[in-house]
């Protein structure tokens, strides 16, 4: 099914935000929509969005490549994106990330064996006073988790595993 067939009303609602002659403004919202199911944007999504917005797929690809929250490769169902930028680093985020990776037996950028969780290192998330912190990007959007420890993170991952199992 094409994106237009999957989410007709939602697409309509997004397009209504912008003047009809500038519907291209909806590209960012449509890319998030396309990413919802599989966690990344595939070739067909790009073709679909290009068609809806009168753009070329090359233009769509350029946008996907530019912004860090769009992905064109499959990863874990949950991307745990840990901030190790200045504010967080001054409060121990590098050590936190290293310890977390050791417990999960992955390196930043890698996915756990069950294919569920990908650990990523990201730039500032505007939560410098609540480090260590990360966001979880998944088909449910993006959610912040602040003032975390390795233990509370492992608990969260266990809960995510349970959710994923039940969903199946």
């Amino acid at each position, binding site marked *: 099914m094409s994106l237009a067939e999957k989410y007709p009303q939602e697409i309509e609602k997004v397009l209504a*935000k912008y*003047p009809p002659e*500038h519907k*291209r*403004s*909806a*590209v*960012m*919202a449509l*890319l*998030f929509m396309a990413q919802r199911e599989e966690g990344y944007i595939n070739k067909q999504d790009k073709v679909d969005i290009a068609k809806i*917005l009168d*753009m070329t797929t090359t233009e769509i690809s*350029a*946008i996907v490549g*530019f*912004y*860090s*929250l*769009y992905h064109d490769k499959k990863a874990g169902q949950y991307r745990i994106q840990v901030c190790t*930028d*200045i*504010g967080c*680093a*001054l*409060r121990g985020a590098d050590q936190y990330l290293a310890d977390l990776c050791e417990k999960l037996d992955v390196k930043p950028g890698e996915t756990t064996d069950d294919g569920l969780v990908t650990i990523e290192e990201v*730039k*500032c*998330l*505007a*939560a*410098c*006073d*609540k480090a260590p912190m990360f*966001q979880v990007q998944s088909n449910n*959007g*993006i*959610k*912040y988790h602040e003032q975390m420890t390795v233990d509370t993170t492992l608990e969260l991952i266990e809960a995510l595993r349970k959710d994923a199992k039940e969903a199946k």
Partner: protein
Amino acid sequence: MKYMLLRHRDVPNINQIDIYQKNGGFDALKKAIKMKTDDVTNEVKEAGLRGRGGAGFPAGVKWSFMDNNNWPHYVVANADESEPGTFKDREIMESNPFQFLEGIAICSYAVGANAAYIYLRGEFWEVAHFLDEKIEEMEKAGFLGDKIQGTDYSLKIYTHLGAGAYICGEETAMLESMEGKRGQPRVRPPFPPSQGLYNKPTVVNNVETLTSVPYIINNGAKEYRKFGTDKSPGTKIFSLSGNVNKPGNYELPLGTTFRELIFEHGGGIPNGNTIKAIMPAGASSSMVVANDEALDTPMDYESVPNVGGDLGSASVIVVDDSISLDWLINKTVSFFEHESCGKCTPCREGAYWMKQLTSRIHNGEGTQDDVELLKSVATQIRGTTLCALGEFSTMAVVSSIERFPEDFEAKV
């Protein structure tokens, strides 16, 4: 002091519309839409409200630049909050959203815009959905939508999510991004009040700036000027982070000293360490030597440059003596290398070079020549890029090498 911006700390649940209204909410909007639009702008001008996103440009003056021979007009609220060390706008939007939305509505009325957009960084996914709900509540209550409060004025506010790009906080890059393109800065002039979104006159203001507006309209410029200094009036939210006991947001009058913020409100430096440096404007800061002169400097737009820094968005990162600055500038440079949009060669290539050099030095593989080369690369980026990102990437580098040479000598 009672809060002007972080009012949720005085009034619990002010993010609920009935509670906001019971506490004076929307009085400013009701008052403004009965005023002449120019009078609204003039009040903000007289209040001396300066842009809180970092540049400190007077908001009312910006509004008065809107080209009245070119329509429609737009307002874009900059909620891209991405400067490392800054985390104030999210608190406003999550906890005092109606005051922010009311500020947008007053600004939109003043400049004759019937559509306003809130550009949020993509990571603020939950905040955007929360604001969508609040916008709907305001529409139902008759403070947004068609014919607001029985007047002829209509306004729609829309949220627009970015997708992870620091550069989109730069206003022209933000407009490009809103138009469905890669977020790369435009050549200026023209500035947005002449040609902004869809090439139409556009005011781009930071969240905190807009949230300051209802107070000014309610109480008048004179009352607003009782806070802060003559040239930097009002209160400001200082985001305090780094090596400090109580990091967080502190709303204080502009002109409060670094010492008061860091030691009285922030509880001082942890682990018995000593303060070494201050980055007053986040990752884009020069490294200010934290001596007595700096600590006693008032945090306002005019005074901070006297100690070799800038106020910027007032994201105060505290660095103590356990930190070696070769490590810290490797962090700042890595950030800018990642976030450079690639449009201007000096920034794109220069940040890459600086990352290589700072990594080498930090890993103990550098020489004194590398430190000199690093400084030379940084200096050559300056003044050669379309937007300030290139310049920002060099601030901590050059100032750290000049003011803390021992940190580098120890590494090479």
